[in-house]
């Protein structure tokens, strides 16, 4: 089931990146897209979650959920400043993509989700794939 859900996530994130690529080619303002995307996400998620009550939003959920949105927003802010400051987009995108190592390492340390050696090779190869494909796109 998890692999199926990952495949669904891949399909939708691929569509998202293709749309972002097309928007860049048409000179559409990324910060405006970002705001519209978050508002759309908020509207859809609220529609899907209906009916909601105060019990649907326990305090820890509000804290963690908001923190996810804020850290994602901070990531976007830092990405924007770095790109506008002259750091090549491919380097910024590469760093952002390779951040997957952060949750993997934290989960292995905190929750003992320790990959077996074969899976570690898979994680490392996915990192190599990201670097090489983004190097190609420079």
């Amino acid at each position, binding site marked *: *089931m*998890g*692999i199926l859900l990952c495949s*669904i*996530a*891949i399909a*939708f*994130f691929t*569509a*998202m990146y293709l749309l*972002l690529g*097309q*928007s860049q080619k048409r000179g*559409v303002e990324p*910060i*405006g897209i*970002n*705001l*519209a*995307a*978050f*508002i*759309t*996400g*908020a509207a859809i*998620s609220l529609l*899907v*979650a209906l009916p*909601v009550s105060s019990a*649907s939003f326990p305090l820890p959920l509000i804290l*963690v*959920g908001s923190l996810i*949105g*804020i850290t994602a*927003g901070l*990531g*976007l802010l830092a*990405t924007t400043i770095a790109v*506008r400051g002259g*750091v090549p987009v491919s380097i910024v995108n590469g*760093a*952002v*993509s*390779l*951040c*997957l190592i*952060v*949750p*993997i390492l*934290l*989960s292995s340390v905190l929750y003992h989700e320790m990959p077996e050696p074969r899976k570690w090779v898979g*994680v490392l190869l*996915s990192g*190599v794939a*990201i*670097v*090489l*494909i983004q190097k*190609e*796109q420079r």
Partner: protein
Amino acid sequence: MRMAWVAIAFLANGSAQFLQKYLHAIGLGAYQKTALVTLYVAGALFAVLLLVWFRGRLSPREALFGMGVGLASYAGNAAMLRALGDTPAYIVFPMAVGGPILAVAIVSRLLFGERIGPYGKVGILCGFIAVILLTVG
């Protein structure tokens, strides 16, 4: 200083991903739907600040692309958040983060006829081997 912002982007995005795992770890996995509401509302508030700070633009073109991106982002995040409930982070994140980069390279070649050079070919091969290693067994 410019590279410090790259480091902040790396850590902030990595933290956002880890927090999705943390949500399940603290027993809030049943609240995935409302977690996405808080995530997107907080993100939207941050995005407003960003728009004001950088004097961005939100014309109908941005809105149209943004709606498409928001829809795809929501569906992808909903699937990823649900996957984290019963699948280890070391499988979910390489697939959900690396998979789309691999898929975009392939789709761009097939649909838009973009050329894939040697680095790209080796990268795609590594990506496929990674997917097999992570998902089989």
